């Protein structure tokens, strides 16, 4: 498959009477955008705001982060099986608005975390302090159940992102990148001497507020399968995950999956990027057995030499990660796994809930329990309800100067397990 990604760099976002993109500036009409969000009657109200890198702004609780895109040619549309009708994406031309994101925020459940600080020490940990953020804070109709509301906000975010992306349809990209994958046979012929490598992505799929969707299908119901990595780049996987802010993959991370990008960068040079394999992280132990068996089987059937396995979330997925690693290694396929750690505030506890000697090549996104001090911000987008709740948990957390002492785990994307960041631990 051949996908052309046209990058349009957004240098500023401003509210205006009508929405458009001009000279790298995104102008957003609040009314028009609100109308898009409120298409779903489950959402009572939506408030838009803009957060820019370097500002004294805190966004919380963050639900999802989405990069606006528009499909200009080729099969399928934006978020196939979710917004656009089901059709295989990953070929043709797609434009992406770079340097910005649509951020959905607002309380869905009472304990929800997810902090994006646009400046200060917290900004060093979240990748979304570097993007211009169009933030939408939604408010549900009374009496809505959390899962209905989660779905409503998820879809509203996608609609607004698609609405913003559509503004770019007639523009000329600032930069175009071409990503091309080969079929199995082509790959063998073209790169007979290069190691055959796949990316095994584990998708969060435990249940309510822990879900991921592949072409609209709930990932806990899939059997492990293969994708062209260009499908992932083109929006085939979206997030429905609200929990574990530091190591969940927002939709933005799926759209810009760094393992996909970095394997592509080496494709045809040092390795042959054969395909992406997706699998899940179910709660039921027999599902774990089946999914890891299948993942390893696919690796063997594809005659892989190596695989990079990434995880999503805390605890239960550690077991899937180790199962995948062990079984793939047992097929003679060399693995590197990417995870993060929960080593306790003092760093002295066991980092993972599972371990095996087969996992001899580990990349870590850092210790999510490590404490960080977040200074008071001038402005809060969303609500500090839960943050204050965290602060209230111990007398030391809310400090005299209004700063917060929190664990990294509350910061969106801080210890991402697809290797999105530079944070690590030793």
């Amino acid at each position, binding site marked *: 498959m051949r996908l052309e990604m046209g990058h349009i760099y957004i240098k500023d976002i401003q509210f205006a009477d009508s929405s458009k993109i001009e000279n790298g500036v995104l102008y957003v009409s609040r009314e028009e955008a609100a109308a898009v969000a409120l298409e779903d009657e489950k959402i009572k109200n939506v408030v838009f705001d803009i957060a820019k890198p370097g500002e004294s702004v805190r966004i919380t609780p963050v639900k999802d982060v989405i990069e606006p895109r528009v499909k200009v040619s080729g099969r399928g549309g934006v978020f196939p099986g979710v917004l656009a009708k089901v059709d295989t994406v990953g070929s043709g031309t797609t434009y992406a608005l770079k340097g910005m994101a649509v951020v959905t925020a607002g309380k869905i459940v009472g*304990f929800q975390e997810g902090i994006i600080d646009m400046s200060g020490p917290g900004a060093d940990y979240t990748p979304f302090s570097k993007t211009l953020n169009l933030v939408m804070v939604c408010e549900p109709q009374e009496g809505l159940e959390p899962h209905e509301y989660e779905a409503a906000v998820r879809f509203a975010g996608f609609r607004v992102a698609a609405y913003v992306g559509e503004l770019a349809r007639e523009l000329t990209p600032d930069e175009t990148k071409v990503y091309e994958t080969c079929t199995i046979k082509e790959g063998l012929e073209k790169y007979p001497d290069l190691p055959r490598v796949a990316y095994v992505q584990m998708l969060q799929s435990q*249940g309510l507020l822990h879900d991921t969707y592949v072409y609209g299908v709930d990932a806990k119901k899939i059997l492990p399968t293969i994708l062209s990595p260009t499908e992932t780049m083109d929006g085939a996987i979206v997030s429905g995950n609200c929990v574990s802010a530091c190591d969940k993959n927002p939709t933005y991370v799926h759209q810009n999956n760094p393992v996909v990008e970095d394997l592509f960068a080496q494709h045809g040079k040092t390795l042959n990027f054969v395909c992406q394999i997706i699998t899940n992280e179910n*709660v*039921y132990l027999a599902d774990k057995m089946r999914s890891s068996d299948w993942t390893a089987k696919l690796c063997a059937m594809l005659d892989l030499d190596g695989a990079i396995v990434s995880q999503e979330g805390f605890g*239960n997925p550690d077991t899937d990660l180790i199962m995948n690693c062990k079984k793939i290694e047992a097929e003679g396929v060399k693995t590197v796994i990417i995870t993060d750690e929960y080593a306790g505030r003092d760093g002295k506890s066991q980092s993972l809930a599972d371990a095996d000697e087969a996992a001899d090549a580990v990349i870590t996104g850092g210790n999510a329990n490590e404490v960080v001090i977040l200074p008071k911000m001038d402005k809060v987008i969303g609500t500090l309800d839960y943050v204050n709740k965290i602060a*209230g*948990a111990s007398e030391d957390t809310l400090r005299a100067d209004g700063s917060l002492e929190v664990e990294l785990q509350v910061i969106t994307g801080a210890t991402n397990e697809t290797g999105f960041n530079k944070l690590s631990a030793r």
Partner: protein
Amino acid sequence: MSGDIMIVTNNPLAHEQLQDKYNVVYYELPLNEILKVMRDMIHAGCHLLTHPLSGSVKPGETPYKSVLMLKGPKTQGSAGEKGAGADSESVKLIESALSACEKFADKSAGYAEKTLKDLQLIDLDLIKGAIASAYI
């Protein structure tokens, strides 16, 4: 098979909604204590069918946990091991869950009733997903 499967939980919502249809063992206990109940059941011969660290809501954030357990020795994969004692995989999982608990500060004290309800609902949804997988 369904007769041998039980739900062990400290989640009142799971107890309320599932007790009519399934065998629910409910204890009103804090998270680490219900995990110890599960551990004791494992040492008495029960098997875990779901992961005791289900959900990415951390220990200390959620006070609730439900698991599916199979009474007596597992029929799958451990034939002929009757009376061989506790299932080692289950022991490993429950012990790692117990030690994971110690890593997190308890933030759940003083949660609003609404928040507790949300947490109960999430735990219930996770176990319902597992029930669907178990076809019981």
